[in-house]
């Protein structure tokens, strides 16, 4: 083993008392051993008490501006390519997640850029008409005063191997002054801990209000403590995982699930002229290659409109070419048997359809060879939205009119989130309106699907508002208090 990296951030617990589980990750010919923290039930309880007490004693009294400054400094550290944490991230994350070095480097920068001071202020302004209500009572529009408080103990249950994805919810919690415990994702167990360490370095008092740990899902002890102690649980994962978690969370605890999602893209005929086709195909290819479609925002299906100067099948060939070109700069990681099987099953299902002698359901063309690190399937007829085989596989669906797409995706409302669109302004808005009705919550340009902007509303929810509880002083109390003032007439 070349390195053993201790994951997590556990203030208030003596380092030598913390049990560790060593997990080896292998990719790109290297091995990284990660020592995941494993706490006993008593340690979990002590950690919850510590975080809750610090949140009440110190975090509550901190101005939001101070928290913003600390997050800004932590992000600056991790954006600085000479900083030791950043160097560690660039060295270890490719091995742990399997993504190529360039993808990790670009992805880290792109995510961390959204956690600088201006972006954080925008984040606050998105959800709060007056972010001052996080610091104290503020006049309410309807009369009286209002104040917002985050939970004393907010538990994040992270999942997945997309680097730095947990930072979105971690930062949201801190901005509303929540005492925070995060559970690392087994598939990317490092970034959240490093970010917490960077926060602690930037503002030691804030670092005491934040813990990052791990436990084996479904195994008693610590898990039960964390799930019952938290005032609010924000959880990520597949529906089965979320259902199992929800069953263990008391009914009085706020449970905010973020399930898996499927993304798709749309290209209008007006975007398909000979000058624009190549660059557009490259942008779609970037969305597909970035994180190997493991992120919920990545496109798995592409609806391309007939009637433009470039036909949909020609666009599919441009896309295949762009994917092939990107493969040399961003090699695909080695797939495990399950992933290869999923991809093979998706390919062969289309292949069988293409071979069907009757040709009824034909019209499927496979571009690329099974040994290529990408796959494009071109369908001549409109079909409802469905997943691809992931890992750089995409279905290009030919449609006569993009206006039909909202109906094709609507059956899967529960899984919708991001749609990338290339269309003229009037159509963009018209189609977006129908997509919103079908359950789509985020619409981006092609090439930006995997990079949500600062202050985005994850799954259409208010990332900060969902976490807080408001206390209102109604106008009557405010007015009545006047009667008791020393200066009352």
């Amino acid at each position: 083993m070349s390195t053993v990296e201790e994951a997590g951030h556990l203030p208030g617990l003596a380092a030598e008392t913390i049990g560790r589980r060593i997990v080896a990750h292998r990719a790109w010919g290297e091995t990284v051993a990660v020592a995941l923290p494993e706490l006993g039930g008593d340690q979990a309880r002590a950690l919850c008490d510590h975080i809750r007490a610090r949140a009440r004693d110190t975090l509550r009294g901190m101005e939001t501006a101070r928290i913003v400054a600390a997050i800004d400094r932590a992000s600056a550290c991790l954006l600085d390519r000479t900083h030791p944490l950043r160097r560690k991230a660039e060295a270890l994350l490719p091995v742990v997640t399997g993504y190529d070095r360039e993808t990790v480097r670009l992805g880290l920068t792109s995510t961390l850029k959204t956690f600088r001071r201006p972006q954080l202020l925008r984040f606050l302004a998105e959800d709060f008409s007056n972010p001052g209500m996080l610091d104290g009572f503020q006049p309410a529009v309807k009369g009286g005063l209002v104040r917002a408080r985050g939970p004393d103990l907010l538990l994040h249950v992270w999942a997945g191997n997309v680097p730095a994805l947990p930072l979105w919810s971690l930062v949201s919690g801190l901005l509303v002054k929540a005492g925070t415990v995060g559970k690392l994702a087994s598939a990317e167990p490092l970034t959240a801990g490093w970010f917490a360490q960077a926060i602690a370095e930037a503002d030691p008092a804030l670092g005491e209000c934040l813990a990052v740990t791990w436990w084996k899902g479904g195994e008693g002890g610590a898990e039960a403590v964390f799930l019952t102690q938290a005032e609010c649980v924000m959880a990520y994962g597949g529906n089965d995982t979320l259902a199992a978690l929800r069953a263990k969370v008391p009914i009085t605890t706020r449970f905010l699930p973020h399930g898996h999602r499927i993304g798709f893209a749309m290209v209008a005929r007006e975007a398909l002229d000979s000058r624009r086709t190549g660059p557009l195909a490259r942008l779609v290819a970037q969305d597909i290659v970035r994180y190997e479609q493991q992120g919920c925002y990545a496109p798995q299906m592409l609806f391309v409109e007939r009637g433009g100067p470039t036909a949909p099948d020609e666009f599919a060939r441009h896309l295949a070419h762009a994917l092939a070109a990107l493969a040399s700069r961003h090699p695909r990681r080695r797939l495990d048997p399950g992933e290869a099987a999923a991809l093979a099953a998706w390919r062969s299902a289309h292949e069988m359809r293409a071979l069907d002698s009757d040709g009824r359901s034909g019209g499927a063309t496979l571009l690329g060879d099974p040994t290529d690190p990408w796959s494009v399937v071109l369908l001549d007829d409109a079909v409802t939205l469905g997943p691809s085989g992931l890992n750089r596989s995409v279905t290009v669906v030919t449609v006569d009119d993009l206006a039909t797409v909202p109906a094709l995706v609507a059956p899967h409302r529960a899984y919708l989130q991001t749609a990338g669109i290339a269309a003229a302004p009037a159509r963009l808005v018209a189609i977006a309106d129908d997509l919103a009705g079908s359950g789509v919550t985020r619409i981006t340009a092609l090439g930006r699907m995997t990079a949500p902007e600062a202050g985005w509303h994850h799954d259409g929810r208010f990332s900060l508002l969902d976490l807080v509880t408001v206390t209102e002083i109604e106008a009557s109390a405010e007015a009545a208090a006047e009667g008791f003032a020393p200066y009352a007439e």
Partner: protein
Amino acid sequence: MSRTETSQAEIVEALLAFIGRGSATDAEFEALALRLFVYQFTHNAPYRRFAQARGRTPLTVRRWRDIPAVPIKAFKDLTLSCCPPEEAERVFMTSGTTGSGRGRSYHPTLAVYDASMRAGFATRVMRGRDAIRMGILFPDETALPNSSLAHYLALAREHFGTPDSAVFVGPTGLDLDALLAALAEAEASGEPTALLGATYAFVPVLDALKERGRRFALPPGSFLFDTGGFKGQSREIEPDAFYDGLSAAFGVARESCLNMYGMTELSTQFYDDGNAVCPPVKSGPPWIRSRVVDPLTGADLPEGETGVLVHHDLAHFNSVSAILTEDAGVIVPGGFRLLGRVEGSASRGCSVAVAEFLAAAQG
């Protein structure tokens, strides 16, 4: 086609001779595999298109390992038959428990299937014994005419069962009382007995015995035979717990608990030499060979690496001999170990993968 056309009768004759010899060299297997590839390529149009799409034709394929293997799902989507399907003497269909459609295998004659089954069963299950009293925990052929397992078990009973053998699954399900009476009788008589059936069919029997506090000590020479797994028909039991349970309930050592691995899309079955250790080494007769491949490229993996099993069954002559399964396995000396189904894995991140999507669509 530059080669001489081979007729179905010639293929059947060659296969029956091959099976009759009981052993085969690598060259003999390869020669017949290539001959069958030509036959299937010529007469099975969807398979021909599949092979052509991979650039594999009788002109380019020189080794049996290069004969393209059809994904098992194709048996659902395509009519894979060299003879006109309506001329088939029998069509075996999968139970259709997973997903849409049922996989179909067309048999213009059952002569080869039956010869293959009998030779394998005699060698690996009977092991030199002529007949044994059988209790069968699966519906018979009249109830399930399209079930390859019902036919298989009927052959077993007909050719290797004593006259007092019986089927204990009728129109109303398992006849537990009759089964328990037969087992008690076997226990008392000292005559070896075999219980054969679907894996899941043993579960309610185990449960009933536990509930009644009843155990049997079947006479020496008895054996248990299960196949097919749980298929959602009963609760799932881990292999070690399952065979411990069988062993305890019937008084048969785990060495005498045999598992057959077969499928509708094959005409030959694999066996182990008991389940003292799970997963056991599986192997088949000389007319079936297995490879472990990368499912995406179809390329052979180095021995000892886990991949997806490809079975090449010469006896499955009318449809396609080479099939890409959805079973994970690893090649070991003497055969392969079966490591369960290859599940298309969930995404590693937060995107929906096919499995979760399908589960949601099916409610």
